[in-house]
């Protein structure tokens, strides 16, 4: 089995994102998920400890509301629990679990605003998606002080800046920096061409870099 490890892993700040022992085939995400499918609950605990922060942040940055993020996060992982027996390690576990998270997020938006768009990555519906996401946020800024640790001002500025980024670009950025997915994996997950994903990432990074430069 060939594992693809993107260099955007958060080994320094979020060590649970990557396996502690990448060389151990029994410690990969896929092996742990398969072990859980056979009834090993401790495998799920390790898997959940690795990915719970990133999936939660992905959902929180999209919804900007903790209660909603809590609900969606629980739904996503319950889906993982229910799908334990039919999980097949033909793709990375990270790609699979973020696919579940995206689908749940889209369902949430559809339930709130009606099924007016078909895909989070549909270029034609990007404007509508942005409208829905902005309406979902309701103009409220993220006001949770726990999200601002070392540099509260920098963190809040980044979060606010990301909230102003179009949803498709924000989605690409979060999948890249939080999930640690590569361009190809994001393109495969979202169904968009890799060049489109690259453009979205460049635009999102440019907005965030501008925010950082304004702080300096």
């Amino acid at each position, binding site marked *: 089995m060939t594992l693809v490890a993107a260099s955007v892993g958060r080994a320094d700040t979020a060590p649970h994102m990557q396996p502690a022992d990448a060389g151990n085939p029994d410690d990969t995400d896929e092996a742990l998920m398969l072990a859980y499918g056979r009834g090993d609950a401790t495998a799920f605990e390790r898997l959940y400890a690795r990915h*719970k922060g990133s999936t939660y942040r992905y959902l929180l940055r999209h919804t900007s509301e903790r209660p909603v993020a809590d609900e969606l996060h629980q739904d996503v992982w319950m889906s993982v629990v229910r799908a334990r027996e039919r999980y097949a390690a033909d793709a990375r576990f990270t790609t699979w679990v973020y696919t579940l998270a995206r689908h749940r997020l889209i369902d949430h938006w559809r339930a709130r605003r009606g099924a007016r768009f078909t895909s989070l990555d549909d270029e034609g519906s990007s404007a509508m998606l942005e409208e829905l996401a902005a309406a979902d946020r309701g103009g409220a800024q993220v006001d949770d002080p726990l999200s601002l640790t070392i540099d509260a001002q920098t963190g809040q500025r980044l*979060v606010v800046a990301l909230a102003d980024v179009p949803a498709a670009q924000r989605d690409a950025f979060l999948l890249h920096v939080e999930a640690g997915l590569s361009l190809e994996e994001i393109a495969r997950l979202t169904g968009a061409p890799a060049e489109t994903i690259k453009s979205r990432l460049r635009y999102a990074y440019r907005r965030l870099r501008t925010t950082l430069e304004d702080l300096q």
Partner: protein
Amino acid sequence: MTIHRRDDERPGDPAVDAAWRAAVRDEPPARIDATILAAARAAAAGARPAPQQRAMRPWWVHWQPLAAAAGVAGLAFSIVQMLPRDPERRATPAVEAVESSRDAASTTAGGPAQSAASKIVPPPALVQDQRPAPDPASAPVGTRATPEADNQSSAATPGVPSPSAYSNPPRAIAPDERAAGLGATSEARVEPAQRRPAEDSAMTPAPTEWARRVAALHASGDRAAAADALREFREAYPDADQYLPTELRPWAASIGTPSAPKNRQE
């Protein structure tokens, strides 16, 4: 295991990534973690026993339902094979008891030949059943019942057909019943047999044999012995006169019975 690094594909900014990781560290609440982990453990606990149960089941357990079904089918087939196939032989248990006792009596008294003869020779009762219902007034003297004696004769002389029996249409009689010389209804035939002990049945000859014996004594000229034999015959079989040859019935009518002496007719 091969690990590919894709730094060249990454359009990100290290400064932005570092600032993001340092500033944004949101985690799900502890209660959400507890809920998810509890559900995961419960699901794993529910999934674990299944393969163990499958592994613990021996191979023959899978064949148990089939073996049980085959056993029931075999038992049912055996029972069906043991049932009598001739519908005429499906008599009541009491009639079967009478038949069995009569068969035993015939075997003991007359031997196998007698038993076979009693089954083959059609008794006069068969002719009696096939004829129209007889007039009680024209019945033989020994069997004729007076109106005041009807109530007694119906119960005391079970072999005599009762008026109710005359009013009923004739019924098909099984061959064994015919051999036993029972011409009345099955209920009337069963009752005397039930009352008679098995020992008496073993000592009593068949009606046809008895009638043959009376006829032989009468033909030999020993009328007194013939009369005694006829009386004994009547004691054993109240309808004994019906078994006698036609030419002997006028003589038999002149012979009284111990229970119904001659002066009764007079």
